[in-house]
């Protein structure tokens, strides 16, 4: 009989993981692996499955991983403890910055710093886009889909939600028909 892990312990371990994850979901994986397998909570060959599932579900990957791992340990309560744990450190840090920053936003030095930062941030959004395009746009019609979505959202002010809904329905239908006709 395995010993039950306490909810508080789950919360603490995930808070530790959350506090040291800088730069999104993927940076979290080695930390989760270290913390979870050391405690024998998750085996190393289970982790790729968890990551793959968390990636394909909507939402933030780090939250999805926490929900899944927490569920494995203590069911629904475990998911809640793990998720709250993983977001608490960043929540508190962001809150502190948001409160502090509103007071200093008009400081001329801060203003100048952000004039430098803003173009860099846009570059940092473009880099993962280019990397994703290289991986997922493998045929001409996939390029068309990518460029079409960009133009609709950026220039014609169409909501991304409608585009995702349409592509989900069309993609599902197309895959379904292809599988049936085989």
């Amino acid at each position, binding site marked *: 009989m395995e010993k039950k892990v306490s909810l508080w312990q789950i919360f603490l371990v995930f808070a530790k993981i*959350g506090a040291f*994850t*800088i*730069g999104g979901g993927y940076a*979290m994986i080695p930390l989760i692996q270290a913390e979870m397998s050391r405690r024998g909570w998750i085996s190393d060959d289970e982790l790729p*499955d968890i990551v*793959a*599932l968390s990636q*394909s*579900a*909507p*939402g*933030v990957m780090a*939250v*999805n991983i926490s929900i*899944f791992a927490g569920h494995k340990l203590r069911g*629904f309560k475990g*998911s809640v403890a793990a998720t709250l744990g993983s977001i608490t*450190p*960043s*929540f508190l*840090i*962001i809150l502190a910055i*948001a*409160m502090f*920053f509103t007071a200093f936003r008009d400081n001329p030095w801060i203003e100048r*710093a*952000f*004039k*430098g*930062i*803003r*173009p*860099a941030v*846009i*570059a*940092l*959004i*473009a880099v*993962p*886009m*280019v990397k*994703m395009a290289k991986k*997922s*746009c493998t045929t001409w019609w*996939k390029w068309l*889909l*990518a460029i079409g*979505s*960009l133009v609709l*959202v*950026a*220039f014609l*002010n169409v909501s991304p*939600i409608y585009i995702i809904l349409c*592509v989900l329905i069309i*993609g*599902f239908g197309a*895959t379904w028909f292809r*599988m049936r006709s085989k």
Partner: protein
Amino acid sequence: MTVLWLILQLSWTFFLIGAFTFGGGYAMLSLIQNQVVVEHAWISEATFTDIVAVSQMTPGPIGINSATYVGYDVLFNATGSPVLGVLGSLTATLSLMIPSFIIMLLIVKFYLKFRSSRLYAGTMDWLKPCVVGLIGAAAVILIIKTTWTGGVPQVQVLSENFPDWKSWLLLAGAFAASYWGKVNPIYLILASAVLGMLLY
């Protein structure tokens, strides 16, 4: 009453964002931007860009961090009260996670069936290029603004994000450093902050 209405709107908006984000934090940014900057005009493009910068530098997933920050700003700007700002943060962050909870718990139940589903993989093949376009659009909207007057588009560079030619150099330099140089985003943002103080 109006505050309550704003909180409800904020909650529903971030619920939608959580439900329709496929493909990670940057995909989520494009949705947050569309909903918060374009649809509701709660914050400006420049403020949104600043929030993304802060979210990239601080620990935690970028999507969650931006939601926390945006939630604070929306209610703080509307009321001037930091306490309501905190309430806004909580509302945005928790609402964002509700769809994940519902869907992940369903997935856990149907774990193996879901994993081997070719139908799912095929649908994702269609969705991934679309997400690439959405992230691209987020970057474009932070650079230029398009307004339509009588069927004629008018394209304007956002002067807050790109005040002069130096901004374009910073964009190109940061892209090169991150893409080819693989420089850590935190160092890149810190370096561009120093450059900003020196150049402007």
